[in-house]
């Protein structure tokens, strides 16, 4: 064997274990459920499950509901986290040090417990309602068993990690180049839009991808405090699978969710592999 082909075999051997793991854990189940999703009631193969997915009124509203919740949540998470991270990066006060210590706490609280906490707080007779009642507010807007509740839960679960990601990207923007921008006359907004945003844009994209994936497939919070109809796809999937025992339809829904995530993944990979010119310094 020539040296080159030896190296080639060695390379294959090195990637083989991780490929096997990927195959067993990801590729195989995806392929199997794709096959399952194409199976119709009479045992043949067609697109009937997918047609049902997009024509049934309830299923369609579930999909739209899920996308709406996800997009609003991702938008809010990014906005809040970025604002928080920028604030922490460019200010140094007692408040900043306090936020820096506190903002990670939600990560350490189990999801179910946090969700019940939210229900206790925002529910019909929750303490937020009781608190407002003291001030003469009779009717609180409905949060629990509503889209707003899921969005609030998503904020709670996603802001800490997103903020952490963005904060580290902002720390990597050196003060010195901000100083030189000030020196040539750039004000606050110009520095933000011409320096800070372009230099942290990639991390922003990473954060958006992570948040999107996490929220679109979330289950605990939508299950516990979401409305009965329409539902998030995770909850709907569970119901089709567990209650209606329709494995083929559940598979079709799972594959569709996977497809939505892959679109996000495609944009992510495309941005990440764009040639990075002149970023060496």
């Amino acid at each position, binding site marked *: 064997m020539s040296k080159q082909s030896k190296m080639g075999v060695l390379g294959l051997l090195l990637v083989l274990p991780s490929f096997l793991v990927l195959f067993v854990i990801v590729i195989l189940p995806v392929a199997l459920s794709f096959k399952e999703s194409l199976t119709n009631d009479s045992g043949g193969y067609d697109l009937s499950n997918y047609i049902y997915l997009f024509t049934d009124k309830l299923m369609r509203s579930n999909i739209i509901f899920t996308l709406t919740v996800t997009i609003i949540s991702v938008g809010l998470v990014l906005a809040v986290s970025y604002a928080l991270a920028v604030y922490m990066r460019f200010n140094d006060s007692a408040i900043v040090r306090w936020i820096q210590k506190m903002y990670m706490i939600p990560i350490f609280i189990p999801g179910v417990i946090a969700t019940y906490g939210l229900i206790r707080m925002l529910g019909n007779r929750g303490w937020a309602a009781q608190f407002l009642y003291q001030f003469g507010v009779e009717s609180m807007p409905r949060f629990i068993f509503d889209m707003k509740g899921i969005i609030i839960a998503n904020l709670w679960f996603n802001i800490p990690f997103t903020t952490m990601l963005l904060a580290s990207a902002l720390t990597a923007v050196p003060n*010195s*180049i901000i*100083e*030189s*921008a*000030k*020196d*040539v*006359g*750039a*004000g606050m907004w*110009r520095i933000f839009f*011409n*320096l800070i945003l*372009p*230099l942290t844009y990639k991390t922003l994209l990473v954060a958006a991808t992570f948040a999107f994936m996490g929220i679109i497939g979330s289950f605990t919070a939508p299950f516990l405090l979401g409305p009965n109809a329409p539902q998030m796809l995770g909850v709907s999937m569970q119901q089709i699978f567990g209650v209606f025992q329709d494995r083929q339809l559940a598979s079709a829904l799972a594959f569709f969710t996977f497809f939505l995530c892959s679109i996000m993944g495609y944009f992510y990979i495309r941005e990440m592999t764009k040639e990075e*010119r*002149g*970023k*060496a*310094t």
Partner: protein
Amino acid sequence: MDIQLSIQNLTKRYKTGDGVTDISLDVRKGELITLLGPSGCGKTTVLRSIGGFLEPDSGEILIENKSVLKTPPEKRPTAMVFQSYNLWPHMTVYDNLAFGLKIRKMKKAEMDFAITEVLKLIRMSGSEKKHPGELSGGQQQRIAVARALLLKPAVLLLDEPFSALDAKLRHEMREELREIQSKTGLTMVFVTHDQEEALSISDRIVVMNHGHIEQIASPQEIYDEPKSLFAAQFIGKMNFLKGVVSADQVIIQNLAFPNPKRLTGEVSIAIRPENVILQDGEETGLSGSVKQIMILGHYAEVSVDVQPFGIIRSFQPRDQVKHLHSGQKVKVNFSKALAFPAV
């Protein structure tokens, strides 16, 4: 004479107690003035105060007779060339140069022209599309200079701009800067810890030590008449000997020199190597023996062991050292000696 920049009793102390105290300095229009001193003496602190990046504890800074203390850096008529270049890594050379001009709402055609011209001036024509990461240190430094030049600042501030470059490039850049200055007539405050650099490019030098000014004078004057022992030590080569004042004369063994500063008691005497005279054994002078002769181009450095003073270095024309050899007994005399209070 027009005073372009005036610093009056500037004091800035950091929490650690380091900083600068009571700095006063007037810079004339079109002048290149150098802040010279060892690392940590407060040069950057003064420069950053002028640029607006530090708020002085007390004192006043006037540019074209207007106080700028209340003006934030982005509004000051200064431009700074930073020690670490501070170019924007995600922008091309063109965008780096155009950024400040866009803020000033310059027209595109005018801007293109100005950028082409400045790139020609720093001899980097054609590099518009490159990113800073694709340039060498010297090229990045030149872009940083160009970026500041384009803004036509009332005062251009340069913080050790050439210290990261190799010796040859550093020499070239000095000459270029001097040329740019004579072409543009810009007022410049240049910071360096390199005395040779300061001597070669400055109209005047401000010698700084431990956060205060030791002397402000032309390179000639600083070299010939250093006002303090520190300035004498820091600039150029110097021999130091102990002496004493007696009958209003500065005495070193059997040699006597005038005492214009009316010093008394023990003194430190500073002598430039070129002011050391080597004579035959019969003449008057300090007796010593030649230790080493180094030919340094058109002149030679001769070190002489003079007890009890130690080694004295002298510069001699090369043809006059032909008859010298190491171990030879000589008499050492000085054509000029500067006395300072002993420390």
